[in-house]
């Protein structure tokens, strides 16, 4: 990030080579449209370039900050699309994410190992629970929207999501120890 602050485009190149693929994968999963995903990812990296000085606060854990921004952007895109369809008001946009604190930024497990852990965890979850978490994370749905979409009771949806997040925390806790 120091190099980006010095307007070194090579640094942005390095960042893109490292995070471009997972960020694009995430945005494409949410936006479900390659052309829009491309546009959103381009915006994200250009925003990183323009707002590098504001990023200082999250200098350690860049990856989750980037993922949070990518998710917010892609969900905003999705909402706009839905708004157009439903003519519904929902303007809770959070373009730049707030601070993301990595519990153990330095001794953290590496990116690929963590990615493997997450994928393994998601595969191990019962299908309805995995679906509920996917609807929340990738579709930006709330508890009640998931309950409506899946036809499950609100309490069941809440307990699936809470349980899933708990397992995620435990899994990453194990992986980093």
């Amino acid at each position, binding site marked *: 990030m*120091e190099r980006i*602050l*010095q307007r070194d*485009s090579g640094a*942005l190149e390095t960042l*893109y080579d490292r995070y*471009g*693929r*997972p960020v*694009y*994968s*995430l945005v*494409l*999963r*949410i936006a479900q449209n390659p052309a829009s995903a*491309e546009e959103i*990812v*381009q915006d994200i990296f*250009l*925003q990183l*370039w323009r707002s590098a000085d*504001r990023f*200082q*606060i999250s*200098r*350690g854990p860049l990856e*989750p*900050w980037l*993922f*949070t921004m990518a*998710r917010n952007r892609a969900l905003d895109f999705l909402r706009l699309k839905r708004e157009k369809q439903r003519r519904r008001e929902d303007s809770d946009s959070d*373009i*730049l994410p*707030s*601070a*993301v*604190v*990595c*519990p153990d930024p*330095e001794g953290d497990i590496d990116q690929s190992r*963590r*990615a493997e852990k*997450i*994928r393994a965890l*998601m595969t191990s979850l019962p299908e309805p629970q995995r679906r509920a*978490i*996917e609807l*929340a*994370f*990738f579709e930006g749905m*709330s*508890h*009640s929207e*998931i309950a409506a979409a899946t036809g499950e009771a609100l309490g069941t949806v*809440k307990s699936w*999501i*809470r349980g899933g*997040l708990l397992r*995620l*925390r435990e899994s990453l806790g194990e992986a980093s120890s």
Partner: protein
Amino acid sequence: MNCEQLAALYEEYALRVLDGEERAELEAHLARTGDKCIQGVSEARWLVAQLAHAAPDAQPPAALRGKILDAVKPTADSSRAVVPLEKPKAPEPRGMFPAWAWVAAAALALITGYTIRQMNNQNAQLAELRKEMKLATAQNQALQNQLDMNRMVAMVMMSPDSVPLKLMPKDSKMPMIHTYLHPHMGVAITADQMPSMPSARTLQLWIVPKSGVPVSVAIFHPDAAGEIALVAPVNMSKNEIAALAVTDEPAGGSPQPTTPIAWMAQVN
């Protein structure tokens, strides 16, 4: 609900899955209380962000990399060639066309010319509107960024775990810089009435450890109003820190201080 009860909701809040009432209650609580809950939410955001790895792996288009890098190269965008509009060719004079055909051709040329002019005007207006929209978006973004930063500074300042320190200027004409050192959130610095600085120079904040060389924490510049508000991470415990110091460095900062200390605060 109290902190302990709401702590169970941090991750669901970070996932943005909470419905109106629960979400509003948690947000009101975060606004009321200090850093304990906000720290919890920040950690929850980290955890939730990891779910990004559950997205199926996809290769971005090869051209995307080039587009991004071209956009940050200053000359890449500005020299796009303008293709001139092809002027309608004047009909070659041929004696065989009757007079009415010439009149019709002239009228057609006039109408075409008028239409092209109108289109150009509309394109210019559209481009102007787009420019204004971009500017408004950028201003909005800048305000949002400023707001985020000010929130972070306020969080660190208000935290009971923060240690306030005064960075005293070596030059008595300079204002004091207020510093708040937090064990987890880093260091917040605020100041006002700072003199303006040339763009080729920057201020750089250093941690001076009890043993070893100074470590760079942040580079910063007073804004147009002479104010500074910044939070930067600190990867060292307070007990290891002897002092905080600020030096005046070339733009972009230096690996080690190159000028005498301009502000300093003893920590231990």
